């Protein structure tokens, strides 16, 4: 819950400005961008995610460092598991890219 998970924005949702697909260590899930509305991120930006919401924009180098920190803390797996869980999706749907729009 308190993990800040670094992810790269790989798809923006043209239907909903508050949604984007992020990639975290190969797992792609939709997150909410509503808390970054003052400076909306663009495709390719890196963000720190808390509980399914992007909370801050960071540089790529800092994102990679953050992932390394999670790894060193033994939390990388928990972080990826958290991302897998976003959208109530199961593990089987991994690696399949963004899920279909509702």
């Amino acid at each position, binding site marked *: 819950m308190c993990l800040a998970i670094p992810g790269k924005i790989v798809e923006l949702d043209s239907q909903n400005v508050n949604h984007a697909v992020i990639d975290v260590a190969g797992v792609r899930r939709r997150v*909410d961008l509503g*808390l970054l509305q*003052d400076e909306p991120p663009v495709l390719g930006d890196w963000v720190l995610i808390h509980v*399914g919401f992007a909370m801050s924009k960071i540089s790529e180098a800092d994102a990679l460092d953050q992932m390394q920190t999670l790894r060193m*803390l033994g*939390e990388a797996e928990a972080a990826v598991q958290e991302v897998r*869980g*976003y959208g109530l999706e199961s593990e089987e749907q991994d690696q399949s890219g963004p899920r279909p729009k509702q």
Partner: protein
Amino acid sequence: MKYVDEFRAPELIAKAGEEIRRLADPNRHYRIMEVCGGHTHAIYRFGLKDLLPSNVELIHGPGCPVCVLPMGRIDDGLSLAAQPDFIFAAFGDMMRVPGTHGSPLEYKARGMDVRIVYSPADALKLARNNPEKHVMFFAIGFETTAPSTALTLMRAKAEGLRNFSVFCNHVTIIPAIRAILDSPDMCLDGFVGPGHVSTVIGCRPYEWIAQDAGRPVIVSGFEPLDILQSIVMLLRQLGKGEAKVENQYKRVVPWEGNRAALRAMAEVFELRPYFEWRGLGSISQSALKIRAEYAEWDAEQRFSVPGVRVTDPKAAQCGEVLKGVLKPAQCKLFGRECTPEQPVGALMVSSEGSCAAHYNYEHRKPVTIASATAI
């Protein structure tokens, strides 16, 4: 040498350790509190204590939301979930936290519909997917998670989704620091400030700690080097007799915080007059409640809540540990009745709780940077 190779810039870490030893006045004992549970975990995990001289002591603060939640709130939340056609949704961290009659996970085993969600947005999705049921999200956390709950409630209201509510346990960090500073048995020299809470609230809310309470605050990142640099910055200030707020984690934390997140919180929440914290007691204006405009989505305004108050198990000394008066291993139950597998107190449940961190890293001590570089 398990961890040492993975560290970024081990030579800088060694240098920071040297600098700390150089700056620490041998005639003085320093008590520094790291407020955030994430920092507590990192300090134990990386064995940073071993890099510090014995007169620089780290005190673990109240920044683990699972740990400070009183048992009565868990009982209240679970009692609501006993209603028919009701889904109790919470983060995984909550699932093993003991209530009087068991943890959410044990309630699930008894047949209650308890779901783990990783985001409040997913609790909302559960409500959309289960229109015949009521979904209550049991919200916990400091300012890192509160804005997400706020935005989720704004979305629920905009959609007019009436089978969704939030049982709000969000707390705010500043009043807890104030309570600790006011506590007569607590003498602290300075604070390592929380990194991710500060991405939301910024650095300004800590200024009174420096100006009025005369204690320096360094907002810090989570890497070993970040934490050590923050201690260096604290010792420099203390050596000069200064007390300022400094931002070591500039690469992530803007001084003004995240305004959009603060707006969402202000739209949905107001301060409770007081709130009970495990170990710290009742602290005025230390928690968030849902505003009347969102009453329909507030489980406490919508349902009748028993308002259970439970004292912690007598033998467990969570309060003293939480305030830093006792070390985890000094609690009578530590490592015997209370373990991460069978937790009695909440500090043993979360990986950010100081008891679980102490148990996992001091009992089964891994090779740390200090011991590895000494080889």
